[in-house]
């Protein structure tokens, strides 16, 4: 703390509160029953309900992916026809993106962890938080209605004029996504306000966990981008319903304008998906290296930089769409600028590991897998950002492989790292470390088998969204399909050991990883209202050179008013004998 701030800081008396091990009462067993769960305003339970929902959608999306890969075993029809294939890839994309990737880290893990990392009892608007979950459910219902009334065969991008003319039930699907958008917006509103207003005493901006910085950047993108998606799908729905002609060339409109609007959301949406993953990786690498994070501000600010620049690059999805060369040039240039903050993060994480005390537990293993796969995803992104090369690679399997490396190799691996990292805090149980690691390795192998051949196929000119393909690609496709089955097996294994952990797992200690972060200073599972004593933060969350006891602090005089994140100095310290 700079000396100039000294006179602004508030003096508090602190006491040390060691977390209770294996508490009898916690958030999972107080307020029991289905109804209590469905009407809960507790962020932790809402987070778990989201977790269950996204797991369900990930399962559906995954099964659809396996159907696609199975169909692609042979160059012609294998077992489903072209119409079904088109519907399946549309649903796979829409479900994975809108129902799994976008809410996965912010709404599921984020909801659970955000107040715990900020040292507050709940998010700023608990009822709106619950509402956002139900809005998500309603959006999902509309999507299911659309599946049963003819599905959608437009691809998840809903490009006009095809989406305006196809006979399938685009209207229901767009309505579902419109509704879903509000769920995402409300989560963003909640998180921004909570991070600003409800930080614990002493939790100044320079002590904010990097996961919070990442979620903060994510929420800003959600709030700024999602409304444009809402208006775009609304206009698309009106296009079908009334034929308003803004996007439909047959009525005088412009299909490229639709693409601008769509990607103004959907490109930043890529960052909605990946930036919170960065946050998790920062937490995990620091914890398991037991070392202060390298370049705190570089990582924190690069999240914001990615969020901001990420808004200006949407046109790189449209290099061949018929937009002006000027726009192509600007978009290509800005695209490369996003690469810089992303690279900075990778190097900072590596530097954090340098001279650390690295414990290769499952979350750390996933973080390492993330580093490797996401780096490949990033480099192939550079390839696709280069205008001349993108002309060749656009809409081929190269793009498919690229975004699966970023989304699955990056985002899903980060999500799994986070899930394994916070699992003990969520359920108070440990999972089988051996099987978890084996699964991670199987997943890694299956993933690369699936998507590496797709880079080769794509550069050789295999277009995406193809039901039939020319014979020369069959070998690659079959290899890829076998890889996808291995991924499937890995997720089944994961499901098995997670279920085992839930019902028969060993009880988890409050702080199994020896982390300094705030969420590990409460018992596992977390208490009903998170903190029985208002915590006081005097060190950063990665200050591993400070003694553990100084992280387990609470205000001695209970409930004296404080403003968010107000700087504090310790006046008197009492060690509590619990």
């Amino acid at each position, binding site marked *: 703390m700079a000396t100039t701030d000294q006179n602004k800081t508030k003096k508090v008396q602190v006491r040390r509160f060691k977390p209770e091990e294996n508490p009898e009462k916690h958030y999972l067993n107080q307020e029991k029953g289905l109804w209590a769960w469905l009407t809960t305003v507790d962020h932790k339970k809402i987070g778990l309900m989201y977790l269950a929902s996204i797991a369900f959608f990930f399962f559906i999306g995954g099964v659809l992916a396996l159907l696609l890969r199975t169909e692609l075993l042979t160059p012609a029809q294998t077992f489903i026809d072209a119409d079904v294939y088109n519907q399946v890839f549309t649903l796979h994309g829409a479900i994975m993106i809108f129902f799994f990737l976008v809410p996965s880290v912010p709404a599921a893990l984020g909801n659970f962890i955000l107040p715990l990392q900020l040292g507050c009892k709940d998010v700023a608007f608990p009822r709106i938080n619950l509402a956002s979950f139900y809005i998500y459910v309603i959006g999902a219902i509309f999507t299911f209605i659309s599946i049963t009334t003819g599905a959608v065969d437009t691809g998840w991008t809903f490009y006009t004029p*095809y989406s305006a003319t196809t006979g399938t039930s685009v209207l229901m699907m767009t309505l579902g996504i419109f509704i879903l958008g509000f769920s995402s917006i409300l989560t963003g509103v909640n998180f921004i306000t909570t991070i600003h207003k409800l930080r614990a005493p002493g939790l100044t901006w320079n002590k904010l966990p990097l996961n919070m910085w990442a979620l903060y950047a994510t929420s800003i993108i959600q709030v700024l981008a999602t409304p444009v998606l809402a208006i775009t799908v609304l206009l698309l729905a009106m296009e079908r319903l009334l034929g308003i002609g803004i996007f439909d060339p047959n009525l*005088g409109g412009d299909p490229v304008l639709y693409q601008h609007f769509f990607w103004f959301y959907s490109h930043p949406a890529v960052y909605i998906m990946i930036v919170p993953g960065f946050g998790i990786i920062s937490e995990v690498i620091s914890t398991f290296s037991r070392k202060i994070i390298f370049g705190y501000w570089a990582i924190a600010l690069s999240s914001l930089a990615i969020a901001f620049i990420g808004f200006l690059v949407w046109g790189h999805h449209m290099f061949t769409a018929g937009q002006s060369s000027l726009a192509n040039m600007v978009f*290509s240039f800005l695209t*490369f600028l996003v690469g810089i903050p992303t*690279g900075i993060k990778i190097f900072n994480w590596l530097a954090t*590991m*340098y001279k*650390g005390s690295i414990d290769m537990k499952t979350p750390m293993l996933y973080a390492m897998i993330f580093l490797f796969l996401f780096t490949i995803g990033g480099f192939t992104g550079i390839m696709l950002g280069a205008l001349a090369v993108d002309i*060749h690679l656009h809409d081929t399997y190269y793009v498919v492989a690229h975004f699966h490396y970023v989304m699955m190799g990056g985002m899903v691996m980060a999500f799994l790292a986070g899930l394994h990292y916070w699992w003990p805090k969520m359920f108070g149980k440990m999972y089988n470390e051996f099987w978890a690691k084996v699964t991670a390795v199987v997943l890694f192998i299956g993933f690369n088998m699936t998507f590496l051949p797709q880079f080769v196929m794509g550069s050789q000119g295999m277009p995406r969204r193809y039901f039939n393909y020319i014979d020369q690609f069959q070998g690659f496709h079959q290899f890829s399909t076998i890889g996808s089955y291995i991924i499937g097996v890995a997720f089944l294994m994961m499901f098995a050991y997670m279920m085992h952990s839930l019902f028969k797992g060993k009880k988890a200690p409050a702080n199994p990883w020896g982390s300094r972060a705030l969420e590990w200073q409460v018992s596992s599972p977390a208490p009903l209202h998170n903190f029985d004593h208002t915590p006081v933060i005097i060190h950063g969350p990665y200050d591993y050179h400070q003694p553990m006891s100084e992280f387990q602090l609470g205000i001695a005089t209970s409930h004296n008013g404080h403003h968010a994140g107000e700087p504090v100095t310790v006046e008197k310290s009492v060690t509590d004998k619990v």
Partner: protein
Amino acid sequence: MNRLSEYMLPPAKSVTAETTDALFTFINNTSLILLAGITVAIIYFSWKYRRRSDDDVTPVISHNNKLEITWSVIPLILVLIVFSWGFSGYMDLRTAPDDAYEVKVIAKSWLWEFHYENGYVSVNELHVPAERPVKLVMRSDDVLHSFYVPDYRVKMDVLPNRYTSLWFQTNEPGESIIHCTEYCGRNHSNMNATVFAHSQEDFETWLETAASADDDMDPVERGEMLITRNACDTCHSADGTRLVGPTFEGLWMSEREMEDGEIVTADENYIRESILDPNARITAGYDPVMPSYQGSLSDSQIDAIIEYLKTLQ
């Protein structure tokens, strides 16, 4: 490492492909070197600094400005090189030489029509002079399509309300495949065509004779040939299989129920109408998706097709 790029890329058959491939190779190699570095660092650190006891004390290294600047600036320089390289390559791809030979392309779900200056129209076969710039001016009849020749490293979307263009110049005579790469519905993956690059002489001969080449064929054979050449068989089978459209088998003189309940006999007039104005009457159970062949099929060609259909009883 260049072998890897060579393995990944299809044969380069156009003059601009060289730049694209060189940039591809550069990015590929640079990325592989950096990736190898990062991977080695991950594995080395994980091993070297593995936890030895629970009381390990780690040094406080919170940041290092010199390092931060280094690993921001070096990638920045690299990506600026890639950007300029990619942009100049792109501008070459966008700027067709003035003396380019022009072919008009009309994309329809799900076929490609190529219109030549003498009025001849070929379907799913693009014939061009080799070693000479060729400019395609393209539009779509219905939804978005995209014209892609992997061997030439060129691609451009085809839009219904505007003309777009691309150009290429082949290195030598030869054949290459054309794909549609903008998703356009059921038969998207069948919307392929072939580009034939002929020597200038051969091309001129082809262009002169193509229009009249099939005039003196046997009508049934000619009809069968036209069905294939105009990609009718993408959607209509000759063996009773149901594809996007009704099968041709047993079509001739059959009683057909239309979408509006009307019963029509598939006679000459009906078939002619179905080819020239396909969405006027739709057979019950099918979608109105067929493009019109007005202007691309002559009367005698339609007669030949009808003669052929008569044989499919």
